[in-house]
């Protein structure tokens, strides 16, 4: 299939038409062009080799159903078959979003852990919504995400292989991201998506691959058969507690060596479980996205601003004192906000995320006398009950003191969350 020249008009199935402006990039499957649709700039993915009728019909159906969430650069219009192929039109990717690969190559880095956690949350939420709509993604890998390094917002692209759960798109996936059962010849589904999701999350947090350690580095030539072994039939997690043969290698896997002890233990335990032999071999045991969201939320609860060095730090919340990951400063984390089974340390300048939408709902501050306050930065008012039974209201932008025994009812988009301030 020849390239499309500037000015070529491509007709759409809904009667509209796009005009080619220029090429934006090309991959194995096709070329992405900047196109004009009634004066609006859009992206057209044009297949180099036209996929079959089933693929075309599936794309048509996905366009009709619409995107599962705003995380997806979802196909919006389908072109008619013409010039020996076809394509689909989608939103243009904004400039401040960078391919995940750029983060892996250390060309772009997250501005904060808050942004990194927001990205993780948004990715989980996207796949939760996708699976909830009855789809499986099938080809989840590092090339599918564009991320804003400042706020962690995510756009998921390459949504043309998305299929109803249980159906086969013909794609297997990308080596190193495929679940062991797919490497062995199985059909991708939501469970194999979940495996790939865990790999992506691991790489997002630790910037190395979960199965690449000493054992894999020792292999001089990564042939297809070794690939099937190291990422499939005999995959060993680098921090498998029961098998230390594939630990990260100093000088090669620097990022994970540095970061593994720094993130909260709950994250380590989650990966140890998700990448255990038992879970690798039993896809049905893998954690659903909703539970991943809970884990990420708890990790975010443990992220505070160190009052001494003013940097973000994770703290373990099992005691009243935490240790800063940057300079080892001791942090008083005795004041807590309890929400269900969550225990959020309240320290100056720390943002509080009540729900999972990546928008902080409250921020802790300190008044001139050093008294800790919580400011309501959500758009809803909170109801607070004092230990003596008085009821107070905290409007949006108002403050309340951090005082033991205060019971707060937050309302986030009509859903109430009950919290209580305590001192441990």
């Amino acid at each position, binding site marked *: 299939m020849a390239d499309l020249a500037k000015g070529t008009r491509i007709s759409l199935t809904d009667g509209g038409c796009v005009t080619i402006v220029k090429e934006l990039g090309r991959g194995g499957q096709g070329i992405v062009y900047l196109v004009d649709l009634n004066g609006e700039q859009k992206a057209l993915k044009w297949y*180099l080799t036209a996929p079959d009728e089933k693929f075309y019909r599936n794309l048509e159906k996905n366009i009709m159903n619409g995107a599962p969430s705003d995380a997806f650069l979802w196909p919006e219009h389908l072109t008619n078959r013409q010039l020996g192929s076809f394509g689909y039109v989608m939103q243009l990717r904004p400039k401040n979003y960078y391919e995940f690969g750029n983060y892996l190559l250390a060309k772009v880095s997250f501005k904060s852990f808050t942004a990194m956690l927001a990205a993780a949350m948004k990715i989980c939420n996207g796949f939760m919504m996708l699976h909830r709509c009855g789809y499986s993604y099938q080809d989840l890998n590092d090339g599918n995400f564009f991320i804003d390094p400042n706020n962690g917002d995510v756009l998921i692209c390459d949504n043309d292989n998305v299929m109803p759960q249980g159906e086969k798109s013909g794609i297997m996936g990308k080596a190193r991201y495929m679940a062991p059962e797919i490497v062995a010849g199985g059909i991708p589904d939501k469970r194999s998506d979940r495996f790939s999701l865990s790999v992506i999350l691991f790489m997002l947090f630790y910037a190395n691959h979960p199965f690449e350690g000493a054992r894999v580095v020792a292999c001089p030539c990564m042939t297809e058969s070794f690939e099937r072994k190291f990422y499939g039939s005999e995959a060993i997690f680098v921090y498998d507690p029961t098998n230390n043969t594939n630990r990260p290698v100093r000088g090669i896997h620097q990022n994970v060596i540095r970061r593994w002890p720094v993130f909260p233990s709950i994250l380590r335990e989650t990966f140890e479980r998700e990448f255990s032999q038992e879970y690798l071999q039993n896809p049905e045991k893998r954690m659903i996205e909703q539970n991943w969201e809970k884990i990420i939320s708890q990790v975010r609860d443990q992220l505070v601003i160190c009052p001494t060095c003013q940097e973000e730090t994770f703290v373990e919340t099992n005691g009243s004192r935490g240790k800063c990951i940057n300079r080892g400063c001791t942090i008083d984390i005795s004041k807590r906000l309890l929400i269900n089974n969550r225990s959020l340390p309240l320290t100056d300048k720390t943002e509080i995320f009540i729900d999972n939408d990546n928008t902080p709902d409250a921020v802790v501050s300190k008044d001139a006398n050093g008294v800790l306050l919580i400011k309501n930065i959500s758009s809803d008012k909170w109801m607070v009950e004092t230990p003596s039974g008085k009821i107070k209201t905290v409007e949006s932008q108002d403050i309340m003191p951090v005082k033991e025994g205060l019971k707060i009812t937050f309302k986030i988009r009509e859903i109430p969350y009950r919290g209580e301030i305590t001192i441990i």
Partner: protein
Amino acid sequence: MGLLDDVVSVPRRTMTLFFVIDTSGSMIGNKIGAVNDAVENVLPMLDEISASNPDAEIKVAALEFSNGCNWLYDEPKLASEFVWQDVTASGLTSLGAACLELNSKLSRSGFMQTPSGSFAPAIILLSDGGPTDDFYGGLSKLKANNWFKNAIKIAIAIGDDADKDVLTQFTGTNEAVFTVHNIEALKQIIRVVAVTSSQIGSKSSTAGDITKQEQVIKDVTEAAKDINGAQSEAAPAPANPSDNYDDWD
């Protein structure tokens, strides 16, 4: 931000792309000119693929053979550091010697030494004739080399005088031999083969047990259909009498 800025690139395995180029006397003129032009122009593309690829770092090595054989650099180099020196044509076609030389460098004590390991290399052989030395002796040694066994091997036959049986022996299958009949096709097929081979490790596969070589063959065969004067030896296009090299001399 301390810890977040203190991040290094993920370790990448190296994929070395070997150009094995026939610089015998029969290549004199437009043929060698086109090869020089094509390789020089494909280097920036390989650099771009390598720079944005979290899976593999692409390096390039080039071996020319005529009366003997000669490496353009004594180690594989990043495409961005590979300054292409035009090769010139003269002399015989020592493909057997080239096989022995390739065999000696396809080892960890040779070109395949990188701290985070390698992928199997891709080897692109370009020739317009037939070997004048002990090709089968050289090839039999090379064929026992594990790096070679696992490599993506593609041959480009320049014109009909190229010994396609030899090229088939080298690549292991006639599906991996592509014949070009004009300068433009030669340039295009060099670009397609080099780019496709370099991208292969970072693409999603559509079937479980297809090898990388098979996938490259499939993609290049598909691309060759759109290149005038290029054909796969597994499915030769009808000969076009206007495509020949007679008027090049």
